[in-house]
């Protein structure tokens, strides 16, 4: 490498391009300083500062949504800036703000240190924002590991609760296993693409573009094929696709409810952002990629829906239904190889999923008792009478997840299925439609538990009524946020307008 090349590399380090991520990092560190500086009585202020600070960063990002550096690369082409990247940055920030709001409610029920939670949530969010814009396998691995290690801590955050710790351990083992698979895949791709003797070898074998160029010149290379399958397997772990979904129900159940929401929405979206980038890189090996992903998608949709049917714990139910959502989204990912607007459909689906999931998880956070892992369908008995507002939000959220028109979830499914139809994935579409029909059963079972009283066998003499934890009152900002999520689910179902048009043109 010559001096000129090094100078060019150093000149490409334009720090202003990652201002939102730096802002999040500074804010996260500021929180820890404030915890030391503030007297104990004023610690309740710190989460408010965290949320207001994140809102400020989100506002700054939206004002400067199309900066001059869009379409270029920075940091020696580690980062590729695009409008999709800007959209995902905003998406992850919204997730982070909502998780912080839920965190305030959930942490009040535990005797736990508070501030670190918000700190780690912000660090993880910053890493996800970088992940969504990565154009290099090195950055991909480091950012993904920052997210994963952050999640190990968040999942086992309630360290007085053995269930939370057990979930943390399970997530740790499966997460580290998937990282190792991904890493081995990356190493194989790096090795074959950088071989100077090979046809189409590249001088940047870590970059997405270099690897794509090599793959296009060498169809059917054995080591590259193994690398592709291992890399896809590593990402499949993160999005929870069959056969790598084993951790999902246990981890979703044991983790604190805000963290479950964060895992379900933000972690899944980050996984799909990575997957869409990788599918583009692996396009020269289309047959291999499509075969692998199609088998996964079909199995994922069927497994997720069938396993969710028998669940009584609502967190496990949402986890397994989340597996089936990952399956529908995989259809969209496969379609991106032949239909240009399929990626936009995936982003819209994830947006609708964010609105609906956070509405449902917000309600769950209020219903949960001190033991976060035990949240049964029975706890929702007479819910509509006791808490009509929360029950309304729950109904809209669940309806949107099930894909009932005219809610946003229906439009998301419609767009993804239309993209899959255009791509000619008819057998997978048939499986997906069957899956949607099955899913209505368990989502409506939950609604039924909340809205209609069911007959229960009389208890034997002397046995106490099973205790239902008292649900927490809704604070004004939380009520506003939940109302906005529910309203947005309805509005985006009826009118997608320029937003969907903009997304579909990505």
């Amino acid at each position, binding site marked *: 490498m010559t001096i000129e090349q090094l100078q060019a590399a150093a000149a490409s380090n334009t720090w202003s391009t990652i201002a939102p991520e730096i802002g999040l990092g500074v804010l996260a560190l500021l929180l820890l300083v404030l915890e030391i500086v503030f007297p104990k009585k004023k610690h309740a202020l710190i989460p408010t500062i965290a949320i207001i600070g994140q809102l400020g960063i989100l506002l700054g990002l939206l004002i400067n949504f199309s900066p001059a550096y869009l379409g270029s690369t920075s940091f020696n082409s580690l980062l590729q800036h695009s409008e999709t990247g800007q959209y995902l940055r905003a998406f992850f920030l919204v997730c982070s703000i909502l998780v912080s709001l839920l965190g305030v409610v959930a942490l009040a029920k535990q005797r736990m240190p508070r501030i670190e939670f918000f700190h780690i949530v912000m660090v993880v969010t910053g890493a996800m924002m970088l992940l969504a814009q990565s154009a290099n396998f090195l950055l991909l691995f480091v950012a993904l590991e920052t997210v994963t290690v952050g999640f190990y801590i968040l999942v086992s955050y309630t360290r007085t609760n053995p269930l939370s710790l057990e979930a943390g*351990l399970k997530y740790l083992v499966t997460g580290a296993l998937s990282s*190792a698979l991904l890493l*081995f895949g990356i190493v194989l791709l790096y090795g074959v693409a950088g071989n100077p003797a090979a046809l189409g070898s590249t001088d940047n074998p870590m970059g997405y573009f270099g690897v794509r160029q090599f793959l296009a010149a060498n169809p059917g290379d054995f080591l590259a094929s193994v690398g592709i399958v291992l890399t896809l397997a590593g990402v499949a772990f993160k999005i929870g696709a069959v056969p790598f979904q084993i951790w999902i*129900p*246990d981890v979703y159940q044991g983790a604190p409810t805000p963290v479950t929401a964060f895992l379900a929405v933000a972690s899944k979206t980050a996984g799909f952002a990575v997957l869409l980038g990788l599918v583009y890189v692996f396009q020269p090996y289309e047959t291999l990629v499509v075969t692998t992903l199609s088998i996964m998608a079909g199995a994922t949709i069927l497994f997720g829906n069938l396993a969710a049917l028998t669940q009584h714990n609502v967190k496990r139910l949402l986890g397994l239904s989340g597996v089936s959502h990952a399956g529908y989204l995989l259809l969209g990912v496969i379609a991106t190889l032949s239909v240009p607007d399929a990626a936009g459909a995936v982003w819209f689906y994830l947006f609708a999923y964010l609105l609906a999931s956070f509405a449902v998880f917000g309600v769950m956070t209020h219903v949960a008792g001190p033991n976060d892992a035990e949240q049964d369908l029975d706890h929702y008995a007479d819910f509509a009478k006791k808490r009509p507002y929360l029950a309304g939000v729950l109904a809209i959220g669940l309806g949107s997840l099930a894909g009932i028109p005219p809610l946003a979830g229906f439009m998301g499914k419609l767009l993804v299925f239309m993209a899959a139809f255009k791509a000619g994935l008819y057998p997978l579409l048939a499986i997906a439609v069957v899956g949607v029909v099955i899913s209505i059963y368990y989502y409506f079972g939950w609604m039924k538990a909340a809205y209609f009283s069911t007959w229960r066998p009389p208890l034997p003499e002397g046995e106490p009524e099973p205790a239902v934890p008292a649900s927490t009152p809704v604070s004004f900002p939380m009520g506003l946020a939940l109302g906005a999520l529910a309203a947005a689910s309805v509005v985006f179902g009826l009118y997608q307008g320029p937003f969907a048009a903009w997304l579909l043109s990505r």
Partner: protein
Amino acid sequence: MSALPLAALEGAFAVSLNAYLYLAAVLFAIGFFGVLLRKNTLVIYMCLELMLVACTVALVAFSRYNGVLDGNVFVFFILTVAAAEVAVGLAIIVALFRRRQTVQVEELNVLKN
């Protein structure tokens, strides 16, 4: 980057790239099946580290034979990530042991259907 003087080395000790790759694959497989089959959390944890080490071996070998240095730089990132993972992982295992007095996976099965 100029080509490394591999030809001069090959006479002295002829270790081919494939030999390193087989070693890495074997180490990776030992680690992978160790994670799936072993019952003690700490042993599982060591197997996870073994998988990362296998990746490192392959990476350094590729970097050497391709005559580029970025693979060697990647190794430092892997080491750092592995250290962070171990720090968090052992903290979770210790906290769990203090609650449950066991680190055997078959006894850590409260979360299930």
